[in-house]
């Protein structure tokens, strides 16, 4: 049924209002967090919040003096990057094979593992990694974080692979291509936006995940997000410092998303594959 122009104008307006609402819900705490990190501590909890103030970097200075924030950040990067790469290396072929063979139960198992509370894994892992003396190693964190990244990669990529017309794979077969080469030369390039989406989501979820690091890391390998828990309740809560820490933690995923937003959008809308 064709829509009348007036109807569609109404829909446009509703759309704009909804977007503004959603933007406010998401952006208000973020903006508040960033602004507060540049306020002196006593102003952070002032009510009503002051929008006009003289920014100070005092919080960041204190933060870097009090804690080895930079090295926590590097730990986080190593673990997150490692687990994302690991998730992609295993997850992309897994998703391709699941799509190709239409056997998806392993992917469902992977998803169930992701949906289970992380504490479920903690105890066995702690015991296992202790037996091989890996507690506190980066590898322990990278491997365990793959529980986060692998299901994301598989489930983001599966519909991308499903969306490639089967005849394209068949043409490649007839053209003399082995399954492995079909994966590398045909399938992977066709899901590049899906790879970007899954990599970012995996990165962000892995970056934000703190539970495993609380237990499996030591003072040398602690991740940023796990370390930030130390700021809460250490005597009086340092709100300004906490906001500065939160801003730094939130930064990498935000920057990453900004860099790849073009792929994110084209990827999330799919259909990019159809020639």
């Amino acid at each position: 049924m064709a829509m009348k122009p007036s109807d569609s104008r109404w829909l446009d307006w509703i759309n704009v209002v909804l977007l503004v609402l959603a933007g406010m819900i998401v952006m208000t705490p973020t903006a508040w967090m960033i602004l507060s990190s540049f306020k002196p501590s006593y102003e952070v909890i002032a009510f009503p919040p002051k929008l006009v103030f003289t920014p100070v970097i005092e919080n960041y200075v204190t933060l870097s003096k009090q804690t080895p924030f930079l090295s926590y950040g590097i730990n986080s990067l190593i673990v997150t990057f490692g687990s994302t790469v690991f998730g992609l290396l295993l997850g992309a072929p897994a998703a391709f094979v699941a799509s190709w063979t239409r056997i998806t139960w392993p992917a469902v198992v992977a998803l169930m593992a992701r949906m289970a509370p992380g504490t479920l894994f903690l105890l066995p892992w702690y015991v296992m990694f202790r037996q091989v003396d890996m507690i506190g190693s980066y590898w322990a964190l990278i491997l365990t974080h793959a529980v986060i990244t692998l299901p994301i990669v598989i489930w983001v990529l599966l519909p991308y692979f499903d969306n490639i017309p089967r005849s394209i794979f068949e043409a490649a077969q007839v053209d003399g291509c082995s399954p492995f080469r079909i994966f590398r030369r045909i399938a992977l390039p066709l899901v590049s936006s899906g790879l970007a989406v899954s990599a970012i989501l995996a990165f962000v979820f892995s970056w934000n995940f703190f539970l495993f690091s609380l237990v499996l890391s030591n003072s040398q390998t602690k991740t940023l997000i796990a370390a930030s828990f130390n700021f809460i309740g250490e005597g009086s809560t340092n709100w300004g410092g906490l906001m500065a820490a939160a801003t730094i933690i939130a930064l990498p995923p935000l920057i990453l998303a900004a860099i790849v937003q073009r792929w994110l959008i084209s990827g999330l809308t799919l259909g990019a594959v159809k020639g």
Partner: protein
Amino acid sequence: MASITIRNLVKNYGGVTVIPGLDLEIADEEFIVLVGPSGCGKSTLLRVLAGLEAIDGGELMIGDRRVNEVPAAKRDIAMVFQDYALYPHMTVRQNMAFALEMRGAESAEIASKIEEAARLLDIQPYLDRRPKALSGGQRQRVAMGRAIVRDPQVFLFDEPLSNLDAKLRGQVRAEIKMLSKKLKTTMVFVTHDQIEAMTMADRIVVMKAGVIQQVGTPEQVYENPANLFVASFIGSPSMNFLPVDIQADGLRLADGSLLPESLIARPSGDHGKLTLGIRPEHFELVQEGQGLAADIELVEPLGSDTLVHVSAAGQEVIVRVSPDLRPKAGQRIWLSPAAGKAHLFDPETEIRIDGTGKAD
């Protein structure tokens, strides 16, 4: 360049048998067209040949190599898909080079083959475009080009023209035919377009429900259909079928009119009720009072000739006449089958039983 031998081929999907034992010999350099109604297993047979589907029984030979267990990648067959299946992320040139690269060909050889195919198909201007930036007809050519550069043993086509408009289809049809003469490669072409089948095939294979009904040249299949199915499937509009009773003095039709027996090569043996088949173009107009009385109900001028829907012998019959005749609805005309052109079928077995020509 190879012959194809199919012996007692069986293909099931799950519990459903799609091809229940099929035999076919395709000669080297032959152009075979597979036709049949939708779902009769044409694509399935083609995919089995390509190695994209495993078979459940029988034997498949390409040249003198048994290929039952040979994967698609190793069969040296090229296939043009209905949706062309071009690689969207590669340019036309890369699409065409892909199979050669897989085979490990030298880049100079690849370049010269692409050059040659591009010239043959007139696609030089698009070589550096992606498929997305091509029209349907251009994509079709690229798909052909991708097949040609391979220089394969066999070409397989699955309805490659069905996405083109009527004019382009006619043009590409002629081009493929010319190409096949030039390339001298065995071709198996699936279509459900009769004109494609009639114009391109060395031999037509008519299939129904996974079973071959007839194999023959376009003329054989058209002039001497093996059974009622082939007779009604080939030719447009379809052959007319009238119940007749063979009597001592001739063929008695349902309305009591009598056709002289001399018109038809009488089948040997004893027959009672049969089905008379006459193509629309195989009627002759005869003098008033002779042959079959027919009342014109509808006239469809096609330009080159005119289709007349008449009511004759108690049913609707379609007759193709010259437009000069200027028939009018409501007129009565008298018709007789052209000598030697009508056929008799056994209504029980559906097999053609008149004496004209062998089925194949």
